[in-house]
Structures are given as structure tokens and as C-alpha cells.
């Protein structure tokens, strides 16, 4: 008995998944537990496994397709089984279009006999060969095998209007057909239908004449403003563009193609969550300049004895975790009627990945020694870059650190990562002249900026947290005295 596998819900916030890779092909045998596909969710790339053995009968979603939750991605069953019933409406939408083209044959025939029209009364040879219709894409029973909008549009429109139907034919074709059947006298009605058809899509709209004029004169239509309906570029626009154009001898700047990139699942989530955060949470920002001289020397000493290399970031994570224990308001979440003060300290670290940003979470960061923080951070960052993070490795943060110091950024402000109450933006450690005991001496400074949600954290509270943080980093040994070292 064939069964379909639907897009599974692989994370709490997932609404659709993109098939990244199929590990099987149609006709392949699969066993229960086989990993048949990889799916990109809003969080990570996850594996989809087969729960029952069988043969892959039909791969419904191709690589790169975005499939909503519950959408069929593949059908598995016994070889030779009829699966039409399982596929249902989605797969058959092309066929319905074909069925309406009973008159399609004659529609195509018109084009074939076209040249005879001018021939006239005595020219008996005018007709005849039309039945063959529109070449190999046209099947007399199924209709246009391309099944699509293009070539078939006029034929379908005719069929629809002849039958007096105003629906049943999809989209713009239906509109055109209805206008044709009903109208004619109404110039306005015709124009309206045209406008509707033209309204979709971002292509440059230009009359055929404007196109050929632009081609002849070397004018890029993309640079011309259209004055016609829906911005259609017409003759007059090309003529005025011509008048305003620079002399043709001037070297034209190279025109490079503009590209529309499909928004990845990850980017959709970044866009949604960060917009929500920035536009909902009342952010405010406080910056402190921290003397990193002791942190630098302490780190050098630690690295002489430590198995794993301790980074400044690890020390900042540690310092934050320690400071958060002392300032629980910063380690909390706004829930509307209540403020949740988190007992645990789970610190998310923003990691840049090729097409976005991930925030793996170091759980119980306050209870882990520096060496473990270092190891975990490295592991999680690696998984993030490979898009192998599992949902539980990305969920449950209570605070976030975003460090752009390695890019030489002096200071910046970050958007709070919901449901956190604050995020720390870490800048680069700079060699700067500092005044010590009345003397200008070389010093090391690092600016950090805390973005706080004012609904939870007030200015003074944020300042207290930053003060503790600064103290810990300026005197790193304090961290080793703190609880949980």
C-alpha cells in the first residue's frame, strides 16, 4: 500500500521546508530508518527518514522546492502501484487546463492558415491544413502539454468566453476570456483586462514600438520612465529619453545584471524575528569602555597552561555569565503580564554563517569553566557554519553576545534576540594611549554596548550590569573566585 511522506515539522517555528538534497531517486528501494532527504528549515538543515520500507514511486518536491508543512514530498510504496489517488489535486492541475482545450485544436489551426486570409474570395486554397495544429507540444486529447500560461492562453480564453464561463480558467487568462466574451463595445472593459494582465511581474513594460525604438537607439529600457498605463513605456517616453540622453560617444557604464535571490528560510526567520524585536521592544543602549590590559595578560598566562586555546570571547562569555547571576533582571524575558526571571544562564553567541547568522546556545554558561566554554563555543560555531545545529542547540537562550571585534569594529549596537531582555555588542580591543598616574602610556581598551529592553531593564540596572562586567574583565581573577568556577 503506497503512502505519502509529508513535510514534517522539524522545529517549533517551522512553517515550510526547502528540499536541499534527495538521497534517493524514483525507483530506489528504501528501508525503514533510511535518510531519504535533507530539508532546510528556518533553523537548520535536518534529515528526513523513511519510517516504512518500500520503493520510491514519485518524488513530488524537487530539490530547491519550498514545501509547506504537511505538503507531499515523496510517495513510497510497492513498485507499479497506482498512486494517482494519493497525489490528488496538486499534481493534476495541469490536466484540468488541458481538458478545456477541446476547441484548442481549431485555435491553433487559425495560426497555421493565417497567411491565406488576405488571399480572399477566389483564393480557394486558403484553408485546409489547419488541423495539424501547434506542433509537438500539442496533444489533441490532453491539450497543450506545456500545460501552462503562454502559448495556450489565447485558446483557453476563447474556450472560456465561448462557453460563457467567467471562471474555471485560471488567472489572467480567465480575465481576458471573460472580457472578450462579454464586451467589445466597451473600450474601457478591454483596457481594464489588459491592465490586469500587465499588473503582475516586475518586467519592464513597453509597447512593441518603444522596444524596437529603444533597441535601435541603444537605450536601456530599464532607465526609461513609462508614462502609459501601469508604467508602460511608449513612443513618447523613448523620444524624450533620447532628448535627455548623453552624447553616444561617451563611454557607457557597464551594465551588470541585477539578481533577485530567493530568500532562504534562515533569512526569513532573521527578518521576522529581528523586525519584531526592533519594532516592538523599546531598545536603549549603554556603552562602556573597558580596560583589557589584565584580560590580555591573564589570557596569555592561561593559554600557556590550558589544553584548549582560550579566546577573548570565551572570557567575555564567562564574565557575562558571572555578571548575569548578579543582575537577574538582565537575564529575563518579557511575557506581557509577567517578567520571567530565568534561573539558568544560557548564553547565545551570534555566529556568522555564509548566508546569515546563527545563535547557538551555551547552556549553563555560568557553571562551566573557561576551557569548556571554549570547547563548546568552538563546536557549536562549527556546527552552525555547517548548518548542522539541532534545534535544542539553538533554543532557550537567556542572553546573547554578538562580537564583531575580529572585524575591527570599534563599537556597534545589536538588536535584542527575543525573548532575551538584552544583548551585548562587543567591539575590538584597541591599542590606545591612556592616561595612567598622569602619564600617557599605551593601553588596551574594548567598548561593549548593551542593548536592553526598557520594559524590563531600566537605565540604572543596565549600568549596574555593565559596571560588574567591566570590573570582571578588568580584574579577570575575580571570575575564578566566583561561584561555579
Amino acid at each position: 500500500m503506497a503512502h505519502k511522506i509529508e513535510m514534517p515539522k522539524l522545529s517549533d517555528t517551522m512553517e515550510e521546508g526547502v528540499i536541499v538534497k534527495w538521497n534517493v531517486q524514483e525507483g530506489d528501494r528504501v528501508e525503514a530508518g533510511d535518510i531519504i532527504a535533507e530539508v532546510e528549515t528556518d533553523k537548520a538543515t535536518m534529515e528526513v527518514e523513511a519510517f516504512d520500507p518500500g520503493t520510491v514511486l514519485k518524488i513530488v518536491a524537487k530539490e530547491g522546492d519550498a514545501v509547506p508543512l504537511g505538503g507531499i514530498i515523496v510517495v513510497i510504496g510497492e513498485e507499479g502501484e497506482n498512486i494517482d489517488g494519493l497525489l490528488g489535486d496538486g499534481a493534476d492541475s495541469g490536466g484540468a487546463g488541458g481538458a478545456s482545450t477541446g476547441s484548442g485544436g481549431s485555435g491553433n489551426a487559425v495560426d497555421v492558415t493565417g497567411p491565406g486570409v488576405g488571399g480572399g474570395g477566389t483564393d480557394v486554397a486558403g484553408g485546409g491544413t489547419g488541423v495539424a495544429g501547434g506542433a509537438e507540444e500539442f496533444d489533441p486529447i490532453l491539450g497543450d502539454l506545456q500545460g501552462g500560461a503562454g502559448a495556450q492562453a489565447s485558446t483557453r480564453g476563447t474556450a472560456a468566453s465561448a462557453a460563457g464561463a467567467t471562471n474555471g480558467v485560471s488567472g489572467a487568462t480567465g480575465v481576458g476570456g471573460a472580457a472578450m466574451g462579454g464586451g467589445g463595445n466597451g473600450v474601457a472593459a478591454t483596457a481594464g483586462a489588459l491592465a490586469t494582465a500587465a499588473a503582475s511581474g516586475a518586467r519592464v513594460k513597453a509597447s512593441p514600438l518603444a522596444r524596437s525604438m529603444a533597441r535601435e537607439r541603444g537605450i536601456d529600457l530599464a532607465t526609461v520612465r513609462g508614462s502609459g498605463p501601469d508604467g508602460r513605456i511608449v513612443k513618447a517616453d523613448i523620444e524624450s529619453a533620447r532628448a535627455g540622453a548623453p552624447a553616444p560617444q561617451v563611454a557607457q557604464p557597464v551594465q551588470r545584471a541585477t539578481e533577485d535571490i530567493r530568500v532562504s528560510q534562515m533569512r526569513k526567520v532573521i527578518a521576522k524575528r529581528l523586525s519584531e524585536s526592533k519594532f516592538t521592544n523599546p531598545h536603549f543602549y549603554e556603552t562602556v569602555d573597558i580596560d583589557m590590559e589584565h584580560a590580555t595578560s591573564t589570557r596569555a598566562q592561561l593559554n600557556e597552561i590550558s589544553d584548549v586555546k582560550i579566546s577573548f570571547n570565551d572570557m567575555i562569555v564567562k564574565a557575562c555569565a558571572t555578571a548575569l547571576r548578579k543582575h537577574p533582571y538582565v537575564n529575563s524575558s518579557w511575557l506581557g503580564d509577567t517578567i520571567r526571571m530565568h534561573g539558568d544562564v544560557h548564553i547565545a553567541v551570534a555566529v556568522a554563517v555564509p548566508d546569515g547568522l546563527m545563535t547557538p546556545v551555551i547552556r549553563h554558561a555560568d557553571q562551566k569553566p573557561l576551557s569548556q566554554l571554549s570547547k563548546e563555543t568552538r563546536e557549536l560555531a562549527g556546527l552552525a557554519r555547517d548548518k548542522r545545529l539541532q534545534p535544542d542547540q539553538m533554543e532557550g537562550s537567556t542572553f546573547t553576545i554578538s562580537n564583531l571585534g575580529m572585524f575591527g569594529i570599534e563599537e556597534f549596537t545589536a538588536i535584542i534576540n527575543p525573548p532575551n531582555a538584552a544583548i551585548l555588542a562587543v567591539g575590538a580591543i584597541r591599542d590606545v594611549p591612556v592616561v595612567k598616574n598622569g602619564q600617557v602610556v599605551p593601553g588596551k581598551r574594548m567598548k561593549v554596548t548593551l542593548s536592553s529592553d526598557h520594559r524590563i531593564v531600566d537605565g540604572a540596572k543596565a549600568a549596574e550590569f555593565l559596571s560588574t562586567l567591566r570590573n570582571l574583565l578588568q580584574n579577570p581573577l575575580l571570575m575564578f573566585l566566583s561561584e561555579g568556577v
Partner: protein
Amino acid sequence: MATLQFREAILAGIDEEMARDERVFIMGEEVAEYNGAYKVTEGLLEKYGFKRVIDTPISELGFAGIGVGAAMNGLRPIVEFMTFNFAVLAADQIINHASKARYMLGGQLSCPVVFRGPNASAGQLGATHSVAYDSMYAHFPGLTVIYPSEPDDAKGLIKSAIRSEDPVLFMESEQMYGMKGEVSDAEDYIIPIGKAKVKRQGDDVTVVATGKMVHVVKQAAVELAKNGVEVELIDPMTIKPLDMETILTSVKKTNRCVVVDEAHPFGGVAAEVGFLIQREAFDYLDAPVQRVTLPDVNAPFSKKLFDLWFPDAKQVVEAVNAVTYRG
């Protein structure tokens, strides 16, 4: 040049051809003793006698068939229908016999018959007396369809029609029979079938119209000229074979076209002209071709509804404004 009514111009053409060729004869309801329902055949009975000017019973299919048979046997009949609305009864003879005889018999005979009479609406005559049949007959291979708009064209073309070796439908208008116009008095004045005339020159938009619609467009052109829009009016005169060359030359100059047709929209002359323009002059078009036609509704009798139904100059102006991107 003589000034003649439209009916007199047709009569002059018929008279000249009857005098020139004794095989030419005319028959139809009231063509002889009554001098024609619209007096197109006035005086012919007196001049040519009952043998060549024949009153028929009210039996369109019958006398159309006699005409087709006579033509196949070497005569050159002119069959007058009191209106083409009544010729629907004779459609079998026209469509199934006249148009196909030469083709089905491998060219062994021809059928040089002229069917003529008023076509299309003549005001409040109701749904069954107001139909434009030109595009319907033009649909069939083997038929020539002529629809002149002015007396001079009517005279030159009726003579060509009578001399044609194949069946011709010659369409007139009840409302134009009294229209006067200058008619060439050149001896044996012939206008060839299948040639359009540029009735008005202009650079801004091509308007194609035949028959009564030519006069609607002329009215609209005067209005449009006041706003600086110059209409080039093309009257194909022969609907089939259609002189697309003249139309395309004009469209390539003006880049815009409106087709005005006193017929319903579906599959009419306007549809055909529009199709051919987009195929042959696509890169010259600055706007989609527009058409002004009757709606897809039968003729109403009520005066108010009739005025809404019938294509008028205002609709032509609107269509021209649409293709020239004005107002």
C-alpha cells in the same frame, strides 16, 4: 463629376453593366414594377423589360437558387435582397452552393452572381432586422464581400462586382441610399475589388472602418482634430479580400490603430484586422489595437437603449484617446 445619391450611383453602375452585357439581369422582391423597395432599380424595367428585370415571390431561398443556377449556366445575375437580414433564408444557396461550386467541381464552372441589398442596422427596426452580415459571409472561402461607404465607391465597385467571375456579396445601407456624393463620370468607371482607400490622412492614429461607420469616424475625426489628433481613415471598401497592405502601411506610420465595425465583436472584421496588425506590425505598435463595435447584445428597439448600443463618434474618440494615451 455628377452629384448622385447612393442609390442612383448603384443604379448607374447596374444600368451601365446591363447595357454593356446582355447576360446581366436583376431579380428580387419588387425590383421591377415597383422600381425597387429602395428605388435602386428605378427605370430598369422600362429600359430592359421583364426578361431582364424580374419580380420574384417572397422566397429568398428559391430565387437565390435560381440566381446561382443561372450563374453556373453562363448568365450574370444580380440578386437583390430587400435586406441581408432576409437573406439568412438564402444562406444555404450562398454558403453551400455559390461559394463552393468552383472548388468542388475542380474549376469546371464558375458562379458569377451578385447578391446585393441593405446590410446592418437602419435605426429602430428591432433585433431581427438590424444585423451586420459582412463578417459572417467574409468567413467563408470563395465569397467576395464588398461594403462601400460613398456613392462614387458604390458605382465603381458594383461594376467590378458584376464583372467578377465569382460570387460577390454587395452590401449597402438603407440609411445611406439618400446620401449624395460626387461620382466620377469617367466612361466605364471601375474601382478594383480588394483595394482600400485612404479617406482621410493623418499621422496620429489609423482608424479602419467600412460602410456607415466611415461617416461616424469622419465625425469623430473632426472632434479629434480640434485637440490636435489627426486621424488617418482607411476604408477597405472590400472586406474580403482585405487590403491589409494599405492598413499596415498606415499603421506603421501612425503606430496606433482603432477598428470600427458595425457588428458584434466576436470573430468580426475588427477581430480579424486586429489580429493581422499584431502579427504583421507588432514592432510598430505603440498601444494595443482597440475596436469599437456593437456590444455582444442583439439590437434593442427602445430608442434610449439603441443609442447606447450603436457605435457612435464619442466611442471612437474614446478609443482613439486610449491608443494615443490621452485623457
